[in-house]
């Protein structure tokens, strides 16, 4: 018979072995070796911390009491694993892409990083975890007591042993779980140790099972007969409990902090789920395979009244198989230790991250100075958390007296932790789920769980018996185990039914009624559409829902107005009926370009990638970046405005310089032109005057002709000088306008007669006197000068056989418009723009003048507030003179 001392030595040796394994695994992982550490097998085995000491010992006890009902606890997780493709895979993907550290972190992250929610989940998890840890303490203590009963030395005392077990486990968890400073990193050592433990407990249970079936019962056939013959030998399962427990265990499998830790946080590769999907159900099947045989044999062999929860130990002991009993003890010890380590790790992470750290940070004066010592604070916070959690478990055990059946305590914990389920599932699959909804749902479920299950389960310690029987204040419909007067239900089914259904209802209703913050909506999109984010390898692809997030993001960067404009334009271009465009690859590319104009290409890509493509940057970081860049943009847009102003000034200076250069060039060319125009008549004058002076024997005709040439050229010179002076006066703006009133018809009369006077030209002038009865008030001489110029131009340049000039006057839109059109060949298009320039002459005819006439006309019309333009497409040359209405009105 193994003594207690041997047992303690074995336990210590086992713990040392676990440490060795964990240490070696960490070393290997750090050295980059040991790919098997991240294999699907290790992952699957680590999931088996689901099977705690409760399942190791309690399943047999449960089977001995209720037959096959125990199997529900394994069937729930089996169904969850089978639905990995659309359930767990999403959870794992979200957890990895959001870098969550715990289930509280996940819930808070989903609902806009709400720490209130994180605190709620943490408290719920700690309250749900405390009885569970108490359960482990109880099972280890009970198993010790079995050996102690047989130990002749009799040194065993229950109370102190529980304390030492609790202290030892706390020590163990602290050493294991907080060896690594960073909770975000994967704990290869712990996971490997857990995997080893899962092998140990499976081996132990199967060993006992094989011993029972083949060693005691004598084979499968006799065993089956024995089962049927036993007191639990018939199918007798309550339908409500059967379905409730399957559902509850499935929910707990997802929501338990320790399960979340190994399944999501420690997950190294999403593909491992593929293996775990069949391997873990297989593990569960093997764990439950021999439960009924052990229970049946235990009921048969052991005396009436012995604790069925310990059959796994007591059956081998009763058969004198000490070593098998020792192995079984190690199996139970394994289950308890692995569960406690991981639970303590997960809970301490939650407590330190969501309870301790926010408080600690708020007590720090300058939050900006928080630096390296945060890590120490975190570490200390976690170690203290573990100690406190273990202490709570210890006191719960002392408080509950350790009398309740193991399985029922476990189920109480399950029901508590399952309250997270609506918020978790809703958060993963429903974008409309809001923080308010999650908070209210959790609170409702939590309160109902405490009221209907936890407090009544304390055997009247915290709830008076009168309340249990008559309801608070005698309100019968609020009796904790018969809410709304529905009686006769199993207390567990009653609690699960009411708490979860009201939880889910409150969650949905409050979600529908409340409005989420932008961060919540962003996170909601991240979670619900996590696969859309991470599947498309190249090119953007997205769902309509993401457009909203893109819109929010774009508004932060471009500003509300431009962002809405851009999105509406895109939506219109797509022909959609909504104001949000479909996130087609084309649209996303354009948006990226639009954003990259503001924040740079890399940032824009990262931002869109965050929303529609997978990326490890957290949304909070991203929003901070967006806000920062908005500020930077504001600053840089100020700079931009200034530099734009500078470049405008520079451009103006350049323009001014160009103008000056042009003016100077124009001046040069003007002088050159003037020189040419002056020298040409002077050349003729000089040549002919020299001829007349030096040549003897000129005929009188010759003398007359040459004198006439000299005379003509002298006149031409005079005219040129007059024109130049006139132009210079007009251009300088020093012209005095002599305003007076007369009708247009009179001005034209004078101009026509003056232009045609002394000319042998055959030009016919056609006028419509009726339309010329327009009173004018202007400088009539200057206007007349323009008319004369136009008429004499027609006279000189009209090349028609019967030259006709048509003068027509109109009143167009309050302006007097006078058109001069001849029937010649007109001015070629390329020359039309040049006719009003100085010295511009069309064709080779030099007889007319220096080419200043139309330039002068233009200047005059400008001074008179009108204009003169060439009218193309009139057959011949046509000019239009406009006079403003103001002058006409002034005359009236």
């Amino acid at each position, binding site marked *: 018979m193994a003594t207690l001392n041997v047992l303690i030595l074995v336990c210590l040796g086992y713990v040392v072995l676990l440490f060795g394994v964990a240490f070696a695994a960490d070393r290997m992982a750090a050295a980059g070796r040991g790919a098997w550490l991240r294999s699907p097998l290790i992952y699957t085995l680590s999931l088996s911390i689901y099977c705690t000491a409760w399942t190791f010992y309690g399943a047999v006890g449960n089977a001995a009491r209720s*037959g*096959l009902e125990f*199997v529900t606890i394994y*069937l729930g997780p*089996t*169904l*969850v*694993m*089978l*639905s990995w*493709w*659309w359930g767990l895979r999403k959870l794992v993907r979200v957890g990895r892409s959001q870098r969550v550290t715990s289930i509280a972190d996940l819930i808070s992250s989903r609902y806009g990083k709400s720490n209130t929610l994180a605190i709620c989940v943490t408290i719920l998890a700690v309250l749900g975890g405390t009885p569970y840890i108490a359960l482990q303490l109880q099972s280890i203590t009970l198993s010790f007591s079995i050996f102690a009963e047989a130990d002749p030395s009799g040194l065993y005392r229950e109370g102190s042993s529980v304390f030492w077990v609790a202290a030892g486990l706390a020590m163990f968890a602290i050493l294991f779980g907080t060896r690594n400073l960073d909770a975000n990193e994967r704990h290869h050592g712990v996971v490997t140790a857990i995997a080893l433990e899962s092998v140990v407990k499976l081996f132990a249970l199967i060993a006992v099972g094989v011993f029972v079936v083949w060693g005691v019962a004598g084979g499968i056939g006799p065993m*089956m*007969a024995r*089962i*049927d013959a*036993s007191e*639990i*030998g*018939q*199918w*007798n*399962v309550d*339908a409500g409990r*059967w*379905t409730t427990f*399957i559902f509850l265990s499935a929910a707990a499998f997802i929501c338990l902090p320790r399960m979340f830790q190994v399944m999501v946080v420690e997950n190294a590769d999403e*593909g491992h789920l*593929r*293996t775990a*999907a*069949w391997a873990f*159900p*297989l593990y569960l*099947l093997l764990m439950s*395979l021999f439960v*009924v045989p052990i229970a049946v044999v235990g009921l048969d062999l052991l005396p009436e009244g012995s604790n069925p929860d310990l059959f796994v130990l007591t059956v081998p002991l009763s058969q004198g198989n000490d070593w098998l009993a020792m192995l079984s003890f190690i199996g139970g010890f394994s289950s308890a230790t692995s569960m406690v380590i991981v639970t303590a790790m997960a809970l301490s992470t939650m407590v330190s991250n969501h309870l301790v750290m926010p408080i600690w940070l708020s007590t720090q004066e300058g939050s900006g100075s928080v630096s390296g010592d945060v890590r120490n604070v975190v570490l200390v916070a976690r170690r203290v958390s573990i100690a406190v959690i273990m202490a709570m478990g210890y006191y719960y055990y002392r408080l509950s007296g350790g009398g309740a059946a193991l399985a029922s305590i476990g189920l109480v914990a399950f029901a508590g932790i399952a309250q997270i389920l609506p918020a978790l599932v809703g958060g993963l699959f429903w974008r409309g789920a809001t923080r308010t909804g999650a908070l209210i749902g959790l609170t409702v479920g939590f309160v109902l769980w405490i009221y209907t299950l936890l407090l009544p389960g304390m055997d009247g310690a915290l709830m008076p018996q009168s309340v249990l029987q008559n309801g608070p204040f005698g309100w019968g419909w609020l009796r904790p185990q018969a809410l709304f007067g529905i009686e006769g239900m199993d207390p567990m089914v009653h609690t699960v039914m009411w708490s979860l259904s009201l939880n889910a209802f409150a969650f949905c209703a409050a979600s529908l009624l409340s409005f989420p913050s932008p961060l919540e909506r962003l996170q909601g999109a991240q979670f619900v559409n996590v696969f859309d984010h991470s599947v498309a390898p190249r090119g953007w692809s997205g769902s309509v829902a993401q457009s909203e997030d893109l819109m929010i993001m774009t508004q932060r960067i471009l500003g509300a107005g431009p962002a809405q404009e851009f999105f509406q334009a895109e939506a219109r271009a797509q022909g959609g009926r909504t104001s949000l465009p479909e996130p087609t690859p084309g649209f996303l590319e354009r948006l990226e370009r639009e954003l990259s104009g503001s924040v740079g290409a890399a940032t824009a890509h990262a931002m869109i990638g965050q929303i529609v493509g997978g990326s490890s940057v957290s949304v909070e970081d991203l929003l901070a970046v967006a806000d920062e860049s908005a500020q930077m943009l504001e600053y840089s847009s100020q700079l931009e405005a200034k530099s734009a102003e500078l470049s405008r000034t520079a451009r103006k200076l350049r323009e001014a310089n160009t103008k000056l250069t042009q003016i100077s060039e124009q001046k040069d060319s003007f002088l050159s032109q003037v020189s040419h125009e002056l020298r040409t008549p002077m050349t003729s004058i000089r040549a002919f005057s020299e001829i007349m002076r030096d040549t003897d024997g000129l005929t009188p005709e010759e003398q007359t002709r040459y004198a006439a040439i000299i005379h003509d050229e002298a006149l031409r010179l005079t005219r040129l000088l007059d024109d130049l002076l006139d132009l210079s006066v007009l251009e300088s703006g020093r012209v005095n306008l002599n305003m007076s009133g007369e009708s247009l018809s009179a001005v034209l009369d004078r101009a026509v007669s003056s232009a045609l006077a002394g000319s042998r030209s055959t030009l016919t002038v056609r006028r419509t006197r009726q339309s010329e009865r327009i009173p004018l008030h202007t400088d009539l001489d200057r206007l007349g000068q323009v008319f004369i110029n136009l008429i004499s131009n027609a006279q000189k340049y009209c090349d028609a056989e019967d030259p006709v000039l048509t003068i027509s006057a109109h009143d167009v839109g309050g302006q007097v418009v006078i058109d001069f059109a001849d029937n010649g060949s007109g001015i070629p298009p390329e020359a039309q723009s040049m006719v009003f320039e100085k010295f511009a002459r069309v064709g080779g005819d030099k007889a007319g003048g220096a080419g200043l006439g139309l330039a002068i006309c233009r200047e005059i019309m400008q001074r008179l507030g009108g204009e003169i333009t060439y009218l193309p497409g009139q057959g011949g040359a046509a000019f239009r003179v406009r006079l403003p209405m103001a002058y006409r009105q002034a005359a009236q």
Partner: protein
Amino acid sequence: MSESEDRKPQRARPSLFLERQSYRRRRLMDAARLLPILGAALIALPLLWPSQTSPEDGVPLSSAILYIFACWVFLIVVSLIFGFAAKRMATGDDPEAESDRWPH
């Protein structure tokens, strides 16, 4: 048959195969989604069995155990097959080679 003629159908095969593969993948995903529902139905089935009214007409526990564990094994095997099929499709970047090994 000459060599060039031999190559023709091979060149046409990938597109046909890819279509078939993506179609199969979709149906496999459908089946994988349905599996837990099937499992739930199988597990819920014992609730229809007659409850113990007298020691004679109840269902023996051994039969119940056999039924439950048989369903369990069946679900594990199907899940195993899905797991391998999913893995093959996820990593099957050489569809031609696979098509030779898995005649369709």
